[in-house]
């Protein structure tokens, strides 16, 4: 029940509230709890290279650049669209979409991202966050995590109706 509700809850709630129900039976492996529940702080502590300020900011840059590219590609493909289809919708060239989906591109503009979000009928959220949130985000990069459903798909109730 708790697990199936997780997508509805903010991360802060998960860490502080769900931890109350989880016995402290973590076993240590590679310095990390093997249990599925790991707090944001523990995740941050596991990123030992991030103690270097310059390094963690370079990682944050890489997370934006690579993360956007993967999100665009996965959301396009899961909607059965080709790069050409997306290019047509964005009134640009297929090569421009290919660049948007290149994890090394690193020059996504906010205006283009808003156009993509508008076409996919999903929201674009841009916000500042602490590095513990970035640590958590870095563990949430599966296709399922990167998929952003359209408004219609969400409102039809398909996504969150798995509570038992």
């Amino acid at each position, binding site marked *: 029940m*708790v*697990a*199936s509700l*997780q*997508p509805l809850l903010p991360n802060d709630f*998960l*860490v502080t509230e*769900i931890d109350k129900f989880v016995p402290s039976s973590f076993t240590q*492996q*590679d*310095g*990390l*709890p*093997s*249990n*599925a*529940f*790991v707090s944001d702080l*523990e*995740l941050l502590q*596991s990123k030992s*290279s991030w103690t*270097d300020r*310059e*390094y963690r900011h*370079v*990682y944050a*840059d*890489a*997370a934006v650049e*690579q*993360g956007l590219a*993967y999100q665009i590609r996965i959301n396009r493909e*899961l*909607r*059965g*669209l080709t790069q050409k289809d997306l290019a047509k919708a964005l009134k640009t060239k297929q090569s421009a979409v290919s660049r948007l989906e*290149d*994890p*090394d591109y690193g020059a996504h503009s906010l205006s283009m991202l808003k156009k993509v979000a508008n076409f996919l009928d999903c929201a674009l959220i841009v916000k500042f966050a602490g590095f513990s949130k970035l*640590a*958590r985000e*870095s*563990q*949430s*990069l*599966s*296709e*399922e*995590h990167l*998929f952003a*459903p*359209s408004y*219609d*798909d969400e409102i039809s109730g*398909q*996504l*969150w109706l*798995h509570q038992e």
Partner: protein
Amino acid sequence: MAKSVRKRAKAVLDEPVTVDAKPPWKWRCRKDDRGVDVIDEWHNSIEVTKTARANFERRRDQLSQLDFRRWERPAACQLKDHICVIHFKDESSKQWRVFGYSAPESKTFVMTNVATEKDDVYKPKKSAKHAANHRDAIRIDFDRLSCGCFPSATAAK
């Protein structure tokens, strides 16, 4: 939206979202005859800048959570016999290539050797062949010739 599109999207929507995500790929590194982790040695060398290491870390974070079929260009490329190359750049656009092979049964990727690429030519030139040779050797003596590295955090969603 086309019917086929909705069908594909629905297949994703119908997947229950649970805490128990698919386990990430585990990373292993090749050890040489001296018992030294060659990937770690390269990773800590002076020629690998912070940007290169950070881009590599993010690339690992991303790839480790994707199906192997998603390890595709431009982030990676798959050669024959389970050999795969992870691509990333540094701030001077130097193109780093980390070779390795996948062991799908244990969802492990063993990194064997590192190269750079320029104008579609690897340096060292025979990096792909070296990777295949290392793979064959490691398969025979897995525990002695490889070690766990770059542990992934097991995270709640």
